[in-house]
């Protein structure tokens, strides 16, 4: 039972790292706890939903199911990206069932109520009887599409489903400031710069693995030649975000020596620096001088996650071969992580596992994430 999440286990998670346990097994294998975390962690905060590039042109619409909720991502006539609940206000019919261009209005396929791309209800055919398109009981101004609060940052569409979170810029002010150098145009690399990984794991394990550098020499031995463990540092801002940084980022070069163009005006620290952070709860970001990436974790079930990866560049036009090589490189690295997160997921079915103990030196970012999750769950359950 979800309400039976023992608050003392959450307290144990929130202890200083030297004595803390990790989140217990139930947070990974119990569907009821997954449902609690849906509300407490994913719906109550700013969760990543999609890339803005999923709807690149005016009128583009893409249905997305997130946490079982049918949503509709739309780029309206003014160019603003919006998220709606993908249902007609009349009978709750799904409005858009496949990605398409909305040429004019969004027409419900059932009784043809029509909505603008801004969500306004614009037509209610025959609602007052055949050929009569108004009725006193139907106030169109009150029956627009249900819009989900959204915010675009890092070319990523974040949504706050319950509508009660503080503004995105407020919640993530420190992170936005930390990466203010990258507050500039970035361009999706296109079809060859996005891919999806289906992973049999709870979404949190993907966050946890991404946050820490401890595993790099063991899981990604190919990085050892130029990016050794001691070249990395932890980032753990309690209650805010966590991840890791490298001091030896090395640009990818093509066979002809080509490199990607740099983002403009970067601080000198980015010449050989790169950082990899989680925007809590479910968006993994990476920044380097010449490209960035976004991984949106889609929690499909308590034991299944879909990782949507997108690569971005400083210029709208980049070298095709180099871009393809970069995608292959990152895909290889992210695929190397799959056996780890799937292995930890299987391990969570071991009744003797108590959430684990952390290395105070190496696991700070993971503990930081656990502390945040436990705090959100405790708050949701009404802990004092």
């Amino acid at each position: 039972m979800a309400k039976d999440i023992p608050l003392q286990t959450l307290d144990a998670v929130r202890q200083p790292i030297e004595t803390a346990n990790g989140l217990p097994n139930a947070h990974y294998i119990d569907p009821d706890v997954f449902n609690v975390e849906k509300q407490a962690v994913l719906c109550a905060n700013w969760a990543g939903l999609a890339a803005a590039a999923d709807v690149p042109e005016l009128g583009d619409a893409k249905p997305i199911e997130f946490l079982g909720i049918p949503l509709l991502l739309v780029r309206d006539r003014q160019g603003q990206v919006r998220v709606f609940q993908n249902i007609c206000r009349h009978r709750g019919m799904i409005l858009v069932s496949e990605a398409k261009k909305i040429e004019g209005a969004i027409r419900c396929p059932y009784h043809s109520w029509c909505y603008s791309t801004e969500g306004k209800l614009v037509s209610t055919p025959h609602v007052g009887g055949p050929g009569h398109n108004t009725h006193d009981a139907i106030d169109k101004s009150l029956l627009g599409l249900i819009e989900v609060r959204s915010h675009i940052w890092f070319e990523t569409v974040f949504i706050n489903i319950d509508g009660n979170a503080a503004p995105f810029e407020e919640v993530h002010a420190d992170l936005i400031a930390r990466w203010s150098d990258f507050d500039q145009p970035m361009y999706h690399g296109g079809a060859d710069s996005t891919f999806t990984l289906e992973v049999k794991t709870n979404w949190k394990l993907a966050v946890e693995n991404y946050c820490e550098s401890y595993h790099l020499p063991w899981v990604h031995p190919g990085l050892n030649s130029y990016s050794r463990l001691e070249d990395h540092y932890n980032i753990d801002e309690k209650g805010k975000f966590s991840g890791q940084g490298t001091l030896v980022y090395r640009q990818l070069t093509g066979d002809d020596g080509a490199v990607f163009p740099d983002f403009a005006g970067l601080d000198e620290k980015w010449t050989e620096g790169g950082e990899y952070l989680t925007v809590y709860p479910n968006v993994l970001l990476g920044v380097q001088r010449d490209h960035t990436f976004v991984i949106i974790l889609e929690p499909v079930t308590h034991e299944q996650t879909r990782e949507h990866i997108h690569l971005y560049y400083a210029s709208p036009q980049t070298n095709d071969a180099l871009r393809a090589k970069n995608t292959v490189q990152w895909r290889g690295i992210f695929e190397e992580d799959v056996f780890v997160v799937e292995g930890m997921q299987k391990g969570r079915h071991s009744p003797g596992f108590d959430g684990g103990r952390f290395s105070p030196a190496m696991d700070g970012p993971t503990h930081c994430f656990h502390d945040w999750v436990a705090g959100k769950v405790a708050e949701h359950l009404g802990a004092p």
Partner: protein
Amino acid sequence: MTTLQDRLLAAHACDDRAALVGLYTEAADTAGDIDAACFFLTHAYVFALEEGDPASTTLFQRLKAEGRV
């Protein structure tokens, strides 16, 4: 020669909404009474709205003139 009904069914069958705008307008123009005309005008208007067809403005005005929108 195919009837208007046949052409409407054919357009529906291949989801040719641009054609449906014209065909329902034609149906409205040849309807026997104002209620039937407004029924067809409504369909023409809805498909024009969906398609972003500028004819939607004229169709709206015709419906409005009859107090139907």
